[in-house]
């Protein structure tokens, strides 16, 4: 991996982390929604770095094109029309509790990763040798993904389609205005 690619990678990482922080801390809920858009874009870029091109495309289409539009719609719909969409300031207790829980979770995960670190690093080193050949030769990943979805994971795939159907119908019924 050359220096330019490495630089782009670190910029992507910082960009994703910074926009995630903005999602949590933005004063106005609309700004948080736009920060969430940037965060989704960053995660899609990270999927590209992980050689998951198809997943990056799905991330863009479903998250940025679907979920984010839904969220923006809900933000604009559920705010009073006079003022810009915002929310009442959060109390110090809520902020403190949230920060404490977030810091505890992060510390726990990083400690866990640190505990796993020696075997993982061995794997990464072994991988690095293999990686270069792979990056050139891995083609048809999407084909493999399709075979997995239509073969080994066929049942979960079909169940997921039923779940989506049920969720969409439920959403329509819940959000519909009562006419009677």
């Amino acid at each position, binding site marked *: 991996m050359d220096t330019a690619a*490495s630089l782009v*990678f*670190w910029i992507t*990482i910082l960009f*994703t*982390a910074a926009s995630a922080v903005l*999602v*949590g801390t933005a004063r106005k*809920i609309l700004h*948080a929604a736009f920060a*969430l858009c940037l*965060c*989704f874009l960053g*995660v899609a870029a*990270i999927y590209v*770095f*992980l*050689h998951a091109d198809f*997943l990056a495309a799905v*991330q863009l289409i*479903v998250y940025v094109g679907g*979920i984010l539009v*839904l*969220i923006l*719609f*809900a933000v604009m*719909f*559920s705010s*009073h029309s006079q003022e810009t969409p915002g929310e009442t300031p*959060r109390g110090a207790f809520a*902020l403190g*509790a*949230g*920060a404490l*829980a*977030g810091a505890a*979770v*992060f510390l726990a*995960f990083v*400690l866990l*990763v640190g505990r796993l*670190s020696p075997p*993982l*690093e061995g*794997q*990464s080193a072994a991988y690095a040798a293999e990686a270069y050949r792979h990056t050139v030769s*891995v083609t048809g990943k999407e084909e493999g*993904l399709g075979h*997995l*979805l239509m073969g080994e*994971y066929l049942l979960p795939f079909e169940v*997921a389609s039923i*779940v*989506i159907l049920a*969720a969409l119908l*439920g*959403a329509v019924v*819940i*959000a519909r*205005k009562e006419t009677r």
Partner: protein
Amino acid sequence: MGVLGISNPFAGGPDNLLTYLVLAAFLFAVGVFTVISRRNAVGILMGLELILNAAGVNFVAFARFHGHQLDGQVFALFIIVLAAAEAAVALALVLAVFQTRQDIEMQTVDELKR
């Protein structure tokens, strides 16, 4: 051993699994912070999306560094599918609550507790 048992976490770059794991942990932690501290129901939903994204990054990272297997990507696909379904239902609930109360502050929606 360096910081927190990780020997030099910044040595990695794109070819190091640890980088992705730490980033995912950070996304997860920020998501937890958002879910706990936000009062707006849509804001809480944004925190949930951050948490689901963190899980997806973890799955794909482990899949890539475990011999380029694709199973992790399939799991991440299912995460995205479930996130979409969850977002649709949750936002419908938000709209329903807003229609009845003109307000989606989670602190004040406590009819069932009275």
